[in-house]
């Protein structure tokens, strides 16, 4: 038995060794591996979460929302946390639209997850139910899903633009996600404490499209009615403002009810729609005078081993007659005065065989073969609109050049881009591509087109009080590289009104089965119906001030007067010289005013007014302080309770778009 002093020394030594080991281990944990353990602890206690950025909204030209982002929810249910499974289950099933069987299955699981997404309205009563866990996600919402669906496009599963403008504008609309750190308990559940934001999300930009929601609806309904009535395979309608190149409406529909963007992607042979471009070359190069006649050959003419026929045989025709009655024989004879290169260059100048440059992810160029690839009958075929394939948007832009005094513009679907605060980042200005014909030739061509509606094949599109210039086109359809027997494409291109046109309309009907297949009886009446509806609509982007005054009818310019293709310098930035747009002026601040006074104030400033809502003026679109062309439409948003929010009349209203 050792002495007590020795035992004490042994114990002391043991304690010292123990302490040394403890200090050593502590040093190892804290100093040597300290960083790793700290990171592990951090990872267990915190979680880095992504803060979704709000995707920018899409509006029509008057501020009507077409695509907005909204908070929706995924719903998780923890059955063991429910206080009253029977009562809670009934409520949850009702709100989420679950069947009894689905709910019973959910109850058997430890945690049931319903992806939905469910709207805030649907989940609101579930917020107070214990055991229900809501996960908010931002989702795209289309207030009227049928409006311009193919043009606007949709998002893919990843939340990125998958088609249409959602895809083209994805980088602008998407914004930038943020990040935050939240605290978790050891079970991995989030603490109810505010997240520490590392990087705030940056919302996407809002885009104001050139589309006019009301015109779009008119176009879609007219096209649907026409396809149903004619039992047609499909069709397209394009409406645009020739002075700016802004596309106002785009409707496409196929027989199966789908609405792929065929106005951009599907080509067709324009047939007689292209005759006006042969006339443009003839007038520009002075190869024909107004008094020149050619024989109608009794309606049947054999040339280069091919027989050309006319539906409405005439003994003798001028160029105006050839366009008016859509004579294949006459236009083929006149076109023989052009060299292949001249004919090709004119069609190319009008934009055929090339992209229009519109902001759409898919666009076809069509086909325009160079003269080196032509056969002997190609010149006559091209004059009649065959051996040439085009898209409806190309036809609309080419006719737009005629309406715009010979200047071809680039089409656009984007009118403005706005920041989250409402500030304008970009505003579209007309972008000229080239001068195609001189102003006088354009006026002469419009007069030829006017004759089509007044006394020719387009008479079904005639309006009583407003002159219309237009051209019909009926062409055989190409199916699998061959002309299909008994299948036709009926098309119609119109300028409204004929003098200083404000609207270009192109209507295409694919293979109508019921009734006539001629454009004069199919596409022309559809055009008239759309024009009448547009005239009767309140907010459609037509300048009624210009329509209401008796516009002096453009004198028929002699075809051989100052024609010819001449170099032309376009001022940049381009301002249309057709006096289509008035001077720009600031939109007055009318927030807080009564409706009547607000409308008067806007009228006094020279704006037209479209009303949204009632009560007290809340804000306008464009916003107060922005500049807008005199005579343009200002949308006035009113709200019965706006006065409370706007406060005193002197306070400047926030710059923002329409209510979302």
């Amino acid at each position, binding site marked *: 038995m050792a002495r007590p002093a020795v035992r004490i020394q042994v114990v002391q030594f043991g304690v010292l060794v123990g302490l040394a080991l403890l200090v050593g281990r502590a040093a190892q944990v804290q100093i040597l591996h300290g960083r790793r353990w700290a990171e592990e602890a951090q990872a267990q206690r915190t979680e880095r979460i992504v803060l979704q950025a709000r995707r920018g909204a899409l509006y029509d030209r008057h501020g*009507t*929302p077409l695509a*907005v982002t*909204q*908070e929706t929810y995924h719903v998780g249910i923890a059955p063991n946390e429910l206080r009253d499974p029977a009562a809670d289950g009934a409520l949850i099933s009702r709100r989420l639209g679950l069947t009894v069987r689905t709910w019973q299955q959910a109850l058997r699981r430890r945690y049931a997850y319903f992806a939905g997404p469910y*709207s*805030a*309205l649907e989940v*609101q009563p579930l*917020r107070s139910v214990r055991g229900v866990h809501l996960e*908010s996600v931002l989702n795209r*919402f289309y*207030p*009227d899903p049928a409006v311009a669906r193919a043009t606007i496009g949709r998002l893919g599963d990843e939340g990125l633009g998958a088609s249409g403008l959602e895809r083209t504008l994805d980088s602008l609309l998407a914004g930038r996600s943020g990040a935050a750190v939240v605290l978790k308990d050891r079970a991995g559940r989030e603490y*109810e*404490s*505010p997240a520490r934001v590392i990087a705030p999300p940056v919302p996407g930009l809002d885009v104001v499209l050139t589309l006019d929601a*009301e015109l779009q*609806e*008119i176009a879609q*309904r007219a096209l649907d009615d026409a396809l149903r009535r004619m039992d047609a395979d499909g069709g397209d309608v394009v409406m645009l403002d020739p002075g700016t190149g802004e596309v106002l409406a785009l409707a496409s529909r196929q027989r199966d009810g789908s609405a792929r963007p065929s106005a951009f992607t599907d080509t067709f042979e324009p047939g007689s729609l292209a005759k006006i471009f042969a006339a443009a070359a003839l007038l520009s190069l002075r190869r024909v005078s107004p008094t020149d006649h050619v024989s109608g050959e009794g309606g049947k003419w054999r040339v280069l081993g091919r027989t050309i026929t006319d539906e409405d045989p005439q003994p003798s025709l001028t160029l105006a007659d050839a366009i008016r009655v859509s004579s294949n024989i006459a236009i083929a004879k006149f076109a023989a005065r052009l060299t292949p290169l001249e004919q090709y260059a004119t069609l190319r100048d009008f934009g055929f065989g090339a992209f229009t440059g519109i902001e759409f992810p898919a666009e076809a160029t069509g086909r325009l073969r160079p003269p080196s690839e032509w056969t002997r009958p190609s010149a006559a075929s091209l004059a009649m609109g065959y051996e040439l394939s085009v898209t409806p948007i190309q036809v609309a832009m080419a006719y737009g050049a005629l309406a715009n005094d010979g200047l071809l513009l680039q089409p656009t679907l984007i009118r403005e881009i706005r920041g989250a605060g409402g500030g304008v980042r970009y505003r579209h200005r007309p972008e000229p591509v080239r001068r195609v014909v001189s102003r006088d030739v354009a006026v002469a061509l419009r007069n030829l087109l006017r004759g089509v509606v007044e006394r020719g094949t387009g008479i079904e599109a005639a*309006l*009583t*009080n*407003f002159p219309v210039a237009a051209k019909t086109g009926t062409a055989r359809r190409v199916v699998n590289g061959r002309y299909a027997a008994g299948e036709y494409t009926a098309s119609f291109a119109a300028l409204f009104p004929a003098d200083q046109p404000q609207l270009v309309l192109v209507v295409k009907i694919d293979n109508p089965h019921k009734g006539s297949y001629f454009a004069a009886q199919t596409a022309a009446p559809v055009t008239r119906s759309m*024009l*009448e*509806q547009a*005239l*009767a609509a309140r907010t459609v982007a037509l300048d*009624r*001030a210009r*329509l*209401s*005054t008796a516009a002096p009818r453009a004198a028929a310019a002699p075809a051989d007067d100052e024609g010819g293709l001449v170099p032309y310098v376009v001022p940049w930035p381009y301002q249309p010289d057709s006096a289509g747009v008035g001077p720009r002026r600031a939109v007055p601040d009318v927030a807080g005013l009564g409706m009547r006074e607000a409308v008067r104030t806007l*009228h*006094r*400033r*020279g704006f037209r007014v479209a009303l949204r809502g009632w009560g007290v003026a809340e804000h306008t679109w464009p916003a107060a302080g922005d500049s807008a062309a*005199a005579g343009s439409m200002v949308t006035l948003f009113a709200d019965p309770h706006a006065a409370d929010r706007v406060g005193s009349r002197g306070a400047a209203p926030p710059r923002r778009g329409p*209510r*979302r």
Partner: protein
Amino acid sequence: MAKGRHWVALWLVAFLVTTWLVYARQTAAIRAARELADLRARRANLDGHRADLERRIRAAESRAVLVPRAQARLGLHLPSDSEIVLVPAPSGSR
């Protein structure tokens, strides 16, 4: 000896006060977080409600709904262009 006890008491009080301050601050933060979450939920609910109303208004205002009803109930029709009169604004109206 008594002086030492005072110091101990003082430190104890300081500790308790600090602890209470931390507790109160945490409690207030959690309450604020709850209120914030409630407000967010209310805003989301109101946004959803507004979006739903806007959708219904858009649907009710659409030509697909209005035109047939105007024709059936009021005997109205879409005017032809000859029935549309655009009155020129007097020159001094702007």
